[in-house]
């Protein structure tokens, strides 16, 4: 019998230790009240997109604090960063976790402003209610491309006016994308397209919009295939595209497994140019990792800036700053959007001359400044960033093509540094 | 089918992958008699009991009780018709006390249907049955957990579980095995009292001497076949039984 009691003693001590731990943490000391402006960042730190956003924000905050912080009605106040992990991108995690993280930032850490906001659409949509309930101004700067976000703000403006979005939405993105396809059709004479989207709300919306838009332009859309998140085999779709002699393959994925699609495309030598929103291929290291199998694929960035281009001066200072601090070029577009969002807040706070939500909202609605992805202006009704093709007028997306190891901007023409190239087996 | 045949088994057989456990067995059981079933180990006695009470599906043949066909029914439906059995190895509910062990059969639809829910407090009825079976009624014994009882008490609990269903046929699967002589001596009057109140009893036994004291008729099985069915005295002398049991040629 001796061994049994010993064993349960270990277990019991383990549990008693748990309880002491609980009591200890419950009385953690109040956050020290100082003068800094607290910037809350609820982001999914376990995912590449979250890490990008975090890097962009930290870089911007350091640069601003280096120059003395933000001038709020005369007094220079430094920015204090509070980051908490929402885990919202992980499949097996309930959204309640993400909302709890956001709420804790506001209540416990006394965050004046929220930046970044959960990346997954369903978590972000749910957090609108939480943020508005606490009357905290928030600017979404990573992920969440689904049109539902700003529609909800527009529908009941006075309840949800606290939320802004700078990542863009699928609808205008498709508008810009269709322009690109028009110029491809004109230059290369392609007319058969094969669309492959991920089974996620914004991707499905993008797929349908693309299909309509392309058919209006006279393209023949062979198929619109929807792949569940985590698919590891695209052979059927690719062979269908090959048989139907599609010249353009339009993938719309933001899951890491899409690299399988690119590898299979390269191995099966499918004579079609992959051009679409392939989030996983935006990483600088993709070329080395897939040892060149992504050659000549064209990747859409929701916002420009992560790849330096002369047409937008701020993108060059941003990319060099990022390279100096982290040793690599910015990965995805969420680094550049999150970097700029801190500057947008700085500009708004300085114009509003106070941290009071309503005056910041008024200032934000009148924002008009140059960011890393072009000119930043908000639509006063839906608090959505205005975007189309010209960096001088509005925010702008960016197409970068993988050409011998480097990402090169190819569209829109105003910021292109090189013209479009075709894969070797397609010439 | 004269009226006092309570259970009829016609040409039942069952084989487990090549081994013929029960081989074309037929017999009748009359109302109010004690029918003994004996036979060496592995002669298919327990399988026969399992067949009758529906725990095992028969390959062919049929079992009837007062016109209703039992083969094919689930064990709980057959118990609902009043044909109950005890298990060779007692199966009490270890985590429950003796009284609570009896609450389960008293909660069955048969009891609800025949006597209705107004049974008063099921515990008092359980205590009555336990007393009838020989558990002292004082505050201690009926409330001990079933896991704390000796083999004798467990066998009595099995019997009590059958009685709680107000059955008219009880099949006892080796009730006496594993009991001391004194416990068997105490058990025999119990069985006789049940038979006196009109209960039909089938007893599968190895303890032939004790069985022959109370059995009206005895059936002998060997290798799944029925090799004899007669009053105890005749069975003792018959050659086939000796040959089957003692292997004397």
């Amino acid at each position, binding site marked *: 019998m001796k061994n049994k009691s010993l064993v349960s003693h270990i277990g019991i001590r383990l549990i008693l230790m748990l309880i002491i731990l609980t009591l200890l943490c419950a009385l953690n000391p109040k956050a020290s009240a100082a003068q800094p402006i607290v910037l809350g960042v609820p982001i999914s730190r376990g995912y590449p997109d979250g890490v990008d956003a975090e890097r962009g924000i930290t870089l911007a905050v350091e640069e601003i604090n280096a120059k003395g912080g933000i001038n709020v009605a005369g007094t220079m106040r430094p920015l204090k960063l509070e980051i908490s992990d929402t885990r919202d991108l992980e499949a097996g995690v309930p959204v309640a976790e993400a909302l709890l993280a956001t709420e804790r930032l506001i209540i416990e850490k006394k965050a004046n402003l929220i930046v970044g906001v959960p990346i997954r659409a369903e978590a972000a949509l749910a957090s609108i209610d939480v943020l508005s309930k606490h009357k905290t101004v928030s600017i979404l700067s990573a992920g969440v491309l689904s049109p539902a976000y700003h529609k909800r703000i527009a529908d009941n403006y006075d309840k949800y006016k606290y939320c802004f979005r700078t990542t863009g939405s699928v609808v205008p993105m498709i508008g810009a994308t269709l322009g690109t396809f028009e110029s491809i059709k004109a230059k290369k004479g392609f007319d058969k397209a094969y669309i492959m989207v991920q089974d996620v709300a914004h991707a499905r919306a993008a797929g349908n919009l693309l299909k309509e838009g392309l058919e209006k332009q006279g393209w023949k859309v062979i198929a619109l295939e929807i792949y569940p998140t985590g698919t590891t085999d695209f052979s059927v779709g690719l062979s269908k595209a090959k048989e139907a002699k599609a010249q353009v393959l339009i993938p719309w994925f933001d899951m890491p497994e899409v690299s399988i699609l690119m590898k299979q495309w390269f191995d*099966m030598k499918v004579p079609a140019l992959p051009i679409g929103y392939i989030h996983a291929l935006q990483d600088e290291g993709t070329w080395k990792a897939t040892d060149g199998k992504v050659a000549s694929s064209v990747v859409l960035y929701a916002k420009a800036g992560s790849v330096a281009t002369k047409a937008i001066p701020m993108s060059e200072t941003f990319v060099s700053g990022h390279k100096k601090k982290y040793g690599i070029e910015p990965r995805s577009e969420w680094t550049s959007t999150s970097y700029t969002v801190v500057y947008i807040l700085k500009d708004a706070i300085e114009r509003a001359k106070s941290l009071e939500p309503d005056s910041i909202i008024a200032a934000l609605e009148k924002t008009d400044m140059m960011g890393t992805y072009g000119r930043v202006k908000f639509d006063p009704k839906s608090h959505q960033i205005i975007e189309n093709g010209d960096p001088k007028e509005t925010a702008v997306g960016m197409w970068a093509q993988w050409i011998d190891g480097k990402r090169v901007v190819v569209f829109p023409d105003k910021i292109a540094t090189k013209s479009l190239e075709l894969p070797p087996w397609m010439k | 089918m004269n009226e006092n045949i309570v259970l009829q088994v016609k040409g039942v057989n069952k084989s487990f992958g090549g081994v013929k456990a029960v081989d074309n067995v037929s017999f009748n059981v009359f109302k109010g008699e004690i029918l003994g079933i004996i036979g060496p180990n592995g002669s298919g006695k327990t399988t026969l009991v399992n067949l009758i009470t529906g725990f095992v599906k028969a390959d062919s043949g049929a079992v009837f009780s007062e016109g209703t066909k039992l083969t094919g029914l689930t064990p709980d439906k057959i118990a609902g018709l009043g044909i109950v059995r005890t298990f060779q190895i007692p199966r009490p509910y270890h985590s429950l006390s003796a009284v609570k062990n009896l609450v389960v059969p008293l909660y069955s639809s048969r009891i609800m249907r025949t006597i209705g829910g107004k049974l008063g407090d099921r515990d008092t009825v359980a205590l009555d049955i336990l007393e009838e079976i020989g558990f002292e009624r004082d505050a201690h014994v009926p409330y001990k957990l079933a896991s704390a009882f000796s083999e004798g008490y467990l066998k009595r609990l099995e019997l009590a579980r059958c009685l709680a269903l107000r059955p008219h046929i009880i099949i006892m699967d080796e009730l006496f095995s594993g009991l001391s002589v004194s416990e068997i001596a105490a058990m025999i009057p119990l069985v006789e009292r049940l038979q006196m109140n009109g209960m039909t009893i089938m007893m599968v036994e190895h303890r032939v001497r004790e069985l022959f004291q109370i059995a009206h008729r005895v059936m002998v099985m060997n290798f799944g076949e029925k090799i004899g069915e007669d009053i105890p005295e005749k069975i003792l002398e018959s050659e086939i039984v000796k040959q089957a049991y003692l292997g004397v040629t």
Partner: protein
Amino acid sequence: MNIFIFGFVNSVILALTASGFALVYGVSRLANFAHGALYILVGFATWLFLNRLGINYIVSILLSIIIVSVIGAGIYRLFLIRVKGMPASEIIASLALGIAIMELFRWRGFISEAYMLPPFVKGSVSIAGVMIDWQRLIIIGVGLAMMCSLWLFTHYTKVGLSLRAIAQDKHASMMSGIEPDRTAVISLAIGSALAGVAAVVILPLGNITVETGYMVLTNAIAVCIIGGLGSWAGVFAGAFLLGFAEILTAAFIGPQWQMVVVLLFIILTLILKPSGLLGKQKELEERV
């Protein structure tokens, strides 16, 4: 035509990933729900050896397979041995361990797409008009070789037979000198090594993500249940049935239904024929 080829490849992949789980659960009746975690453990270990320590590819593969089989044996020796009899606690303990390992990788930051393993041989060849890359042909080769050697192992070697003996009747096999814990440790070690081999061959196709771990576990369970426990032919049949079902739904009904089919098959098999296609599971049905 290409549906047949890619269906075949998909089935061999399923068979390979399930073989480790089938050996451990099917043969020696030990539920090792940490199978998915061991699969990606090998992937990340190989990546670390290759990129961080710069060891050459083949050596790093062997090293990580050895490590994972030691970990597999360790899981049994330290954890599962205490809950051997109770199937429910076995599942909960091994599932919890698997999740702990996988989430540990996520915490250490193994999350972006940069984690990929280079394929053994580059380039592709065209068979009957369908371009198929060498890596997939290697998978088919390794897969078939693996299944045959496992079949021979469990049927003709001493250790293999003792594995099956323990599963069928523990006490009888203990009588004939087979020590249950030792065989269980061996079976878990070999099972994990199988998961390792499968990982090293299949992962170069795509990249290593934590989600693949959960996916591999679901597929392995599906193959073992549908194919039936305890028989290698069952695992093979289950893998091919599922492999082609997935490809056919992707081709004709639509790729988004691909995942649903796998799970639907599990539930249908359990309802219609619990012991699976070729399983010899008798005690599943009621028996006194």
